[in-house]
């Protein structure tokens, strides 16, 4: 055997080896490229949304200095506390006062383009601090939607010219619009806010969580720990796995046919939306829960059983606490998906114009993604930026939730 040269030591072998290494390199770079591409798409998506949306947090406002001493308004602090304060100010002619000073400051054409509801901002300022009616105050009041688009270089030529003129005089500016976070839907892009939709989303998510979490966790425990292996449990398993993949719009059809038939007066209500989304989220929690429960090593169950714990005690004393981080991670991810869901809600009446934030689980509401969908369909072009701004808010929530899930996963990653 000594003269035999192993085939793995021939020059031919080594030549082939070079090629194999080249192939290795190519393959590896392909893998890297796939990842780089995917991440790049994500960055591009988030980037464009952010760039488009930043402007949505601002609105074009006009400078209107008001000299209240000339206006002769009375703002008795007592009346200013009552709910009728606004009416009182309107009755005293505040709108006209604002209009007058607007003409002084902006000229005829400019004042025309002051939003018809601009005086309300002034009224609110007076209600907040009645003492200002004894002095002079400079207000930045929202411009009309048309002037606002003129200011961003769109819309009619006349208004673009007017905007340029006002800009030159420093009387129009884009300011941060804090009200965007406290108002609800409106028809005028200058007046819209996302609080209504956000609150609707929160109410909906609370319902979803309250239903999906306990049911999901209990079902996961049952299936993983107690269920005998028979046709029934196979059926349960199949339906859960299937529900996790059923198109979300089908859940909308279910909500329409079942929930809205049972509770027709709760159309558009967060409680119905929440129930529909809970059915969608529950299987996600069950599956995540089962995986987390499966990851608890059997030796721990054995240990507990061997000191005489009953199966229920084993689960509630040992398995559940250990699986909880995993279950929570799954729940957060499921909830994040529900938070971004639109399609099923189209079917159950949440595609609605709701101009005031919902005040309970049963009052009509819309949700953030639905608000985005509705705004994306708006005629007025001022909505384009507002839509992107709402998207940013939604994405922030989702990133937060995902981040929390990742944090939980890393923190509690158990090695037994």
């Amino acid at each position, binding site marked *: 055997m000594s003269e035999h040269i192993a085939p793995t030591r021939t020059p031919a072998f080594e030549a082939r080896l070079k090629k194999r290494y080249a192939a290795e390199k190519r393959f590896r770079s392909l893998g890297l490229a796939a990842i780089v591409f995917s991440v790049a798409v994500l960055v591009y998506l988030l980037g464009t949304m952010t760039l488009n949306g930043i402007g949505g947090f601002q609105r074009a406002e006009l400078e209107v200095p008001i000299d209240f001493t000339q206006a002769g308004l009375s703002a008795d602090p007592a009346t200013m506390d009552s709910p009728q304060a606004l009416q009182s100010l309107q009755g005293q002619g505040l709108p006209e006062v604002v209009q007058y000073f607007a003409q002084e400051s902006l000229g005829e054409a400019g004042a025309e383009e002051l939003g018809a509801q601009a005086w309300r901002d002034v009224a609110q300022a007076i209600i907040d601090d009645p003492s200002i009616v004894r002095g002079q105050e400079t207000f930045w009041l929202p411009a009309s939607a048309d002037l606002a688009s003129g200011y961003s270089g769109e819309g009619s030529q006349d208004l673009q010219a007017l905007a340029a003129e006002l800009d030159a005089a420093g009387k129009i500016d884009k300011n941060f619009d804090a009200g965007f976070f406290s108002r609800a839907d409106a028809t005028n892009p200058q007046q819209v806010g996302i609080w209504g939709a956000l609150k609707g989303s929160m109410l909906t998510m609370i319902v979803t969580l309250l239903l999906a979490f306990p049911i999901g966790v209990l079902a996961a425990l049952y299936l993983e720990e107690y269920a*005998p*292996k028979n046709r029934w449990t196979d059926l349960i398993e199949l339906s859960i796995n299937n529900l996790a993949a059923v198109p979300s719009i089908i859940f909308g059809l279910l909500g329409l046919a079942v929930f809205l038939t049972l509770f027709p007066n709760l159309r558009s209500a967060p409680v119905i939306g929440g129930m529909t989304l809970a059915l969608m989220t529950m299987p996600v929690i069950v599956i995540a829960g089962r995986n987390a429960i499966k990851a608890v*090593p059997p*030796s*721990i169950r054995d240990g507990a059983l*061997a*000191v005489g714990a009953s199966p229920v005690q084993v689960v509630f*004393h040992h398995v559940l606490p250990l699986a909880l981080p995993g279950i929570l991670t799954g729940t957060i991810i499921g909830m994040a998906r529900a938070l971004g869901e639109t399609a099923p809600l189209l079917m159950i009446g949440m595609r609605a114009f709701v101009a005031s934030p919902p005040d309970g689980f049963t009052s009509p509401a819309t949700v953030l993604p639905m608000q985005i969908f509705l705004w994306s369909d708006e005629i007025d072009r001022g909505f384009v930026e507002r839509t992107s701004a709402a998207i940013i808010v939604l994405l922030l929530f989702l990133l937060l939730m995902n981040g929390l899930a990742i944090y939980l996963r890393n923190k509690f990653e158990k090695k037994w």
Partner: protein
Amino acid sequence: MVTVVHENLEDTDAKMSARDVSVYYGDKKAIDEVSIDIPTRYVTAFIGPSGCGKSTFLRTLNRMNDTIPSARVEGDIMLDGEDIYKSGMDVVQLRARVGMVFQKPNPFPKSIYENIAYGPKIHGLAEGKDELDAVVEKSLRRAGLWEEVKDRLQDSGTALSGGQQQRLCIARAIAVDPEVILMDEPCSALDPIATAKIEELIDELNGRYAIVIVTHSMQQAARVSQRTAFFHLGKMVEYGRTSDIFTNPLEQRTQDYITGRYG
């Protein structure tokens, strides 16, 4: 009965006794008509090649087999003359009376204190904190672990070394005051020093509890046990005093196994 049982065992009284016990996993017979008396005062060792059914049989003794859906037991197993497979038998209580220690140490991922206190708590064996503290201390002392851990009872049980973990598991079993302790290869995951400690501990516990130990090390069986049962292919081949089995086996298969012909 196919088993060869040495004659000189009558002096012992049986804590547990199995009669014609067969165990199936689905259709597969893993234990074939085993009959044995587990004496009250001695350490009994089960030896035999891998897969011969030692663990399976051990787990029938406190019905841990119930957790395997496919497992099915035939024949009778008595604890103090009471059939543990009779209907209406309370498995929870049975397992409190017949404790078990596993191959891989499996402390709960809780504090050392909680590990020991868990059994007494769920069985209501201790009232109030003081009594519980006493039980914990006593069990840890018996398991020879007290000195090593008394200052860190709140540390996690999983933070101990492998040998300490195994002693913790023994202490956990002791804490509910069992009558029988089953041990399934308790040292096979441990290093030699930890193994020696456990063997010492078994020696000390001997006489207080009926102890059954499965081991793949014949030397260990020879060192710690007074009775040895040799299993092969699901059957119990031979059962007798440890000294007799190792010096004077009656069966050829036993002879071959202990001299290393196979396994």
